[in-house]
């Protein structure tokens, strides 16, 4: 599904990704780990087509994520580490997602309810005015409702309380078949029951890649 070949990305003189190669296939759940500045976020952003590589390439189902942006992003769900301060109301955000990605709003509400978040009561509320945990729950609900083949989570449980984490893990277990799940995390123990592969990055390179 995802093929990264000799990918190099530089920011000025700083090499963020140094000829990285890896492949993620269906039914793989990967914990992407490493210290700050190791290149995890750069790798994720390259997969999403946000960065133009200096060398090498990324292919998602054989397609370049920059040139075939729409086709590629139809297959990807993404939840960032910190929910961004989106000023749209929840209703407007759901409208944006429903029109652009053809996501069923009722399904978003369903997954939000499963995460113990009542959307209907907050439809007119600005997204950025929700609490950190509520924002994270909504973004997770959206990521699941999108029914993508590839789900990328950047520290998804950072703002969640233990009960919400359990809900999140339960929903992921129900939705993991035939997918690639990529978790960017500093704490393996939080996702160890979900992942079957662990990649460790340092200084822009993959230094270990274990399957279990």
């Amino acid at each position, binding site marked *: 599904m995802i093929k990264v070949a000799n990918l190099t990305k530089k920011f000025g003189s700083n090499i963020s990704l140094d000829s990285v190669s890896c492949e993620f296939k269906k039914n793989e759940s990967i914990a992407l780990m490493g210290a700050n500045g190791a290149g995890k976020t750069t790798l994720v*952003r390259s997969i*999403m*087509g*946000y*960065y*133009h590589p200096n060398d090498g390439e990324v292919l998602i189902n054989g397609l370049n994520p920059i040139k075939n*942006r*729409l*086709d590629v*992003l*139809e297959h*990807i*769900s*993404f939840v*960032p580490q*910190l*929910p*961004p*301060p*989106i*000023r*749209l109301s929840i209703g*407007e955000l759901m*409208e*944006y*997602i429903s*029109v*652009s*990605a053809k996501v069923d709003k009722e399904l978003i509400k369903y997954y939000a309810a499963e995460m113990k978040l009542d959307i209907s009561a907050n439809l007119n509320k*600005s997204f950025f005015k929700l609490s950190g945990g509520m924002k994270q729950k909504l*973004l997770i609900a959206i990521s699941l409702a999108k029914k993508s083949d590839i789900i990328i989570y950047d520290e998804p449980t950072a703002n969640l309380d233990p009960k919400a984490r359990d809900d999140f893990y339960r929903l992921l277990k129900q939705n993991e078949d035939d997918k690639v799940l990529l978790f960017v995390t500093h704490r393996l123990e939080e996702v160890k029951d979900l992942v079957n592969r662990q990649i460790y990055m340092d200084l822009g390179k993959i230094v270990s890649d274990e399957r279990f």
Partner: protein
Amino acid sequence: MKNLYLIAYLDLKESLRAKWFVVYSLVFGGLIALFFIAGVTESQVMGFSGLSRLLLMYIQITIVILPIFILITTVRSISGDRDSHVLEYMLSFPISLKQYYWGKVIGRFITVFLPVFFAMVIAIIYGAFKGAAIPWNLFFLYTGLLFAMSSAFLGIAFFISSFVKSSEVALGLSFFIWIFLLAFIDIALISLMMQERMSSGLIIFISLINPMEIFRVAAISLFDPQLTVMGPVAFYILDSMSQTVFVLVSILYPVTLGLVFAFLGYKIFEKKDLV
């Protein structure tokens, strides 16, 4: 197209809720209210009175404040979203960069143009209610000029927003461009003219490629078709084109300028790293 309208619609709704929009609308609406309260419509200067005088005053103040308002409120639309990681999330959905960018441009254009336009409409309605004669020719000319001015500075703002990484730099650049163009309305050009280092024709050409200057000249052209208040400048302008052509140029040139800058901004947005 559906996504384009969606982005425009959502940007418009977001802007309408923003504090800057309230201030922006109050400033232009307040100006008109202030003119009525101050009795501008009853005053007479250089033979102009009533609503014509009010609209002329409104447009003269707008020349100065509209560009900076548009620049500082718009320049952060993309760079601000990039700064706060909003862009990273919003662009994780299958929406084309073209639809996202131009949707933002359309939404923001409506936001900046409508308050200045409606302020004029309110003046016309209130003036008619008070029994004043309505200068329709002025109203249509100023609507066209405000449309052109808004297009020009919106395009410039989106151009800056597309390549600047932080909001602070974007704001700094906006102020620089505004001061630069404002200075070239008179101060710099008069000093260049006095030093006689360049030909007058060249200086006038430089001044007329400045959208703020062309806006100002066009704004008085209906009152003063011979542009006599401009002295020798009128000779160059009216020698090169008729008054009607000049008015058309003063509308079409800023619109084109805005579109060119907006297009360049889009090209940069498309080619650069998105976040």
